[in-house]
């Protein structure tokens, strides 16, 4: 044993410049809490909205600046550096993920801040502590009280999401996982309308989320027991040397995979997804669907490529099965759904399956030619295409309403094309993108992950993926037919007129979905420049 007392304690050196995007986001979150404590009630909404938007823009600029002067290694194959004593990897993939998380965070803030749809109030509970259907709740509504704490909560979640895929040791990764999850549990339970199902969604998400992170933590403990370190590179070295109990490594790896696959919503750990996506306020669903998935896939790729890369014969077959199962479950069960949000949730499960298909493909840049992309780059590109279409689609869902708030039952969407041709057209466009029709981003994204998987020898999986895309296309087209070729039931749905905020989010989502489908090259080049993970 090394005598612990003999070690001198050195204060760690932090390169604040390289960490600035993270620090800005967490700083804005803390400032938001102070605003909640000290600013007068009527000013909080305005201050917090502006603070969040400005903070996210500043963080985005910081990401561009940090990426601009990131050092490059191995002749440009990878770029970036390890910061905070090796705890955080500010490398190409991490910077790319930070960039897209911040862009989707900005779009989500726009949806969170929407006030036109509920008669001058946000879509969040006026007073979460007041029981549904009581005088206290009605009084809160009539006095125009609202929970503007949702903005700092969202910023904390976003900060955790940025830290999660950048974490270069397992302890940082666990802390980041909790920092991103805990605010999301609360946000899920804060809907203004249909509060019972919102609270139920929060409880289900919390209990299952806490369970999965406990499994993840025990996995970390076993991997630490195997390798004697939390650092991903040290775990890689230990696995290459195969010192110690291998069964402990396998169980640890399995438990960590469960935790990460739960967060991405892959079958058989997907059961929470439809319930939580349906019950949560739609703006929160949009944020969760896009950003949590991006962060969790970033972390999944980093852990399995960097730390467990040497043991890939152990985990690749499992990932094959999970990819096929996830695509099948998502696509087949989506057919029977009667609720728009639930259908989109199953669609997001299917998309997780497509991303895992890309994940099992080619892993090293040396194996691919100049025209091809590695799995990592294909997955990064797919996440961009998926995020824009998802936020746009959920933003459309917030606009189709009746007397009781959003009307998400599919039968109420019949004849929407006659009521609001533009909105129905935009939603149809997002659905076509989910289905992967050419000239939408979904096609180019799917093409990339399938190409990476094919080049990596996973052709049976690509065949399954193409089949499942066809099944998925069926239910997307069914919704389009329902919207345009059916007669409305009763009065039909009303389409609320949103403020500039939601309009902007939908416009950006639709534009980017079209642009990435027609000229994907600029974003693809960015993903290519992101290179590989550094160790």
């Amino acid at each position, binding site marked *: 044993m090394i005598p612990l007392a003999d070690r001198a304690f050195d204060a760690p050196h932090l390169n604040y410049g390289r960490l600035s995007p993270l620090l800005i986001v967490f700083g804005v979150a803390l400032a938001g809490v102070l605003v909640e404590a000290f600013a007068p009630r009527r000013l909080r909404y305005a201050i917090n909205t502006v603070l969040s938007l400005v903070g996210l823009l500043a963080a985005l600029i910081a990401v561009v600046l940090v990426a601009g002067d990131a050092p490059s290694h191995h002749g440009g194959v990878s770029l970036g550096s390890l910061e905070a004593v090796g705890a955080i990897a500010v490398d190409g993939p991490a910077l790319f993920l930070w960039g897209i998380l911040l862009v989707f965070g900005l779009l989500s803030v726009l949806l969170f801040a929407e006030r036109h749809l509920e008669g001058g109030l946000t879509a969040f509970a006026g007073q979460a502590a007041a029981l549904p259907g009581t005088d206290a709740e009605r009084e809160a509504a009539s006095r125009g009280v609202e929970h503007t704490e949702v903005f700092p909560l969202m910023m904390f979640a976003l900060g955790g999401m940025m830290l999660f895929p950048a974490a270069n040791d397992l302890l940082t990764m666990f802390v980041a996982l909790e920092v991103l999850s805990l605010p999301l549990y609360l946000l899920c339970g804060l809907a203004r309308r249909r509060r019972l199902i919102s609270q139920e969604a929060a409880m289900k998400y919390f*209990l299952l989320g806490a369970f999965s992170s406990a499994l993840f933590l025990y996995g970390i403990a076993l991997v630490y027991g195997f390798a004697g370190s939390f650092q991903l590179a040290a775990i890689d070295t230990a696995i290459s040397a195969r010192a110690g109990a291998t069964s402990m490594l396998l169980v640890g790896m399995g438990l960590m995979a469960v935790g990460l696959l739960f967060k991405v919503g892959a079958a058989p750990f997907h059961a929470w997804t439809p319930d939580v996506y349906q019950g949560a306020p739609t703006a929160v669903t949009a944020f969760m669907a896009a950003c949590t998935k991006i962060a969790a896939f970033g972390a999944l790729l980093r852990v399995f490529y960097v730390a467990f890369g040497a043991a890939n014969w152990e985990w690749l077959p499992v990932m094959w099965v999970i990819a096929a199962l996830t695509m099948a479950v998502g696509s087949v069960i989506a057919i029977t759904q009667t609720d728009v949000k639930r259908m989109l949730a199953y669609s997001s499960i299917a998309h997780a399956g497509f991303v895992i298909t890309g994940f099992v493909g080619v892993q090293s840049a040396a194996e691919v030619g100049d025209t091809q992309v590695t799995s990592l780059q294909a997955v990064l590109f797919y996440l961009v295409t998926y995020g824009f279409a998802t936020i746009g689609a959920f933003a459309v869902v917030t606009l189709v309403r009746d007397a009781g708030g959003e009307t998400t039952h599919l039968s109420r969407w019949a004849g929407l094309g006659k009521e609001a041709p533009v909105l129905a057209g935009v939603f149809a466009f997002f659905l076509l993108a989910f289905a992967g029709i050419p000239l939408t981003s979904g096609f180019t994204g799917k093409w990339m992950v399938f190409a990476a998987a094919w080049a990596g020898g996973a052709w049976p999986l690509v065949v399954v993926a193409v089949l499942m895309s066809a099944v998925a296309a069926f239910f997307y087209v069914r919704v389009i037919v329902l919207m345009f070729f059916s007669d409305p039931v009763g009065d039909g749905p009303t389409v609320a007129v949103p403020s500039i905020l939601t309009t902007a989010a939908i416009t950006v989502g639709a534009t980017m979905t079209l642009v990435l489908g027609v000229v994907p090259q600029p974003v693809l080049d960015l993903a290519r420049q992101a290179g590989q993970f550094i160790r």
Partner: protein
Amino acid sequence: MSPTPFLVLSALLFSIGTLGVLVRRNAIVVFMCVELMLNASNLAFVTFARQHGNLDGQIAAFFVMVVAAAEVVVGLAIIMTIFRTRRSASVDDASLLKY
């Protein structure tokens, strides 16, 4: 001193916690079982730290305690709201969302 008994105890606690989450019906008890799983991990962390002769595992245990405390705050808030609305903390009663 052999670390094996400590690891066996940690695995036992973890299994009891996992089983509890899967079979118990009261949200508070389910949540306590999750906490048991976290503490089982702490025991494993400290044992492995002793075995490998470094401090990483012990530090991890502190971080896990802080995270567990934060989780209690959020979790009890959510379970309390559900209980006040429904007058029940059973995970079977909350079943508006399904299929």
